[in-house]
């Protein structure tokens, strides 16, 4: 802090250099955008924590309606989990291609990631439609309300991630792997892997523990 106004202090030699009003020796984060995006992810984590707490409180309040053990189809959930996990590794490959400045490879892996993500959202929507069709919609019981809110919020995140991914694919096609685009791809990478982390909580806490007696 002591070097805040070093060039102003020697009065006689004031003309020799323009005054500097920033800390020359201060620590900068290596990349402010990525740190800021990480802070956003942490706040998103708090949103999910609230929804998980809500499900944890209400998850056994069936209101005389169907229980998790009756509704959840674990093989479908396993397929969904596999899709999301695979999309994580394909995004990782896209980042590796990006680091080698290979535009075509990056785009190909991004496209595969998007398809896997779309498959995930598709299966989830199908599951939701099936539940609602059976009369187990979000209005049926507190358990189903909290279930649809938690899993739906995660699905919404993945959907917006896909929108972002398509946008970035267009950006990379038009402008190449520029500095800005590489930074954006790294942000989306964090977002995508973060959603996979949240899904670990969902399939464990909601589906696997939901079918236990």
């Amino acid at each position: 802090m002591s070097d805040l106004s070093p060039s102003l202090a020697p009065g006689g030699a004031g003309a020799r250099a323009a005054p500097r009003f920033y800390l020359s020796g201060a620590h900068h984060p290596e990349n402010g955008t990525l740190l800021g995006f990480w802070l956003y992810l942490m706040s998103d984590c708090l949103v999910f924590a609230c929804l998980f707490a809500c499900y944890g409180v209400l998850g056994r309040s069936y209101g005389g309606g169907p229980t998790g053990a009756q509704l959840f189809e674990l093989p479908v959930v396993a397929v969904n989990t596999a899709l999301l996990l695979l999309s994580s590794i394909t995004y990782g490959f896209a980042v590796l291609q990006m680091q080698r400045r290979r535009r075509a490879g990056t785009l190909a892996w991004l496209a595969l990631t998007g398809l896997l993500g779309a498959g995930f959202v598709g299966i989830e929507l199908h599951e939701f439609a099936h539940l609602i069709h059976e009369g187990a919609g979000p209005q049926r019981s507190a358990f189903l309300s909290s279930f649809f809110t938690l899993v739906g919020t995660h699905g919404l995140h993945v959907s917006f991630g896909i929108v972002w991914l398509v946008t970035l694919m267009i950006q990379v096609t038009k402008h190449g792997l520029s500095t800005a685009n590489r930074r954006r791809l790294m942000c989306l990478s964090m977002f995508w892997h973060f959603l996979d982390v949240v899904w670990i909580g969902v399939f464990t806490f909601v589906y696997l523990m939901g079918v236990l007696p």
Partner: protein
Amino acid sequence: MSAPAGSPHRDDHGQGDDHHGEHHDEDGGASHATLKGYLTGFALSVVLTAIPFWLVMGKVLDQPSALALAVLALAAVQIVVHMVYFLHMNAKSEGGWTMLALIFTLVLVVITLSGSLWVMYHLNQNMMPVSTQQMRNMP
């Protein structure tokens, strides 16, 4: 918080705020990404996903509470694996600020989850439905 001498990206800090990102981008997360890291993380998470599904779907353990604990423990391990191998978390990235934010968030998450469950469990206990017989004898 002095800059490590070995890093070439740190040299022009302070003087060139205009060309932000020109050098920074390859750092900050991406530099840790390697094929080996991703494949290790993927293999670990496949195993850590397969085990809980197998435990529950194959009804391996008899006690539901033991099963729940095992599944939760495996999920915790898998989250750490994802954090390290996919999100490239370590104590040094961004000068330790990401780790600090993560720890702070974890504290809040633990308070939110355990607090909610604890309080609401006790409220549920006190709000247990009573029989009509008990209702009649109430003051």
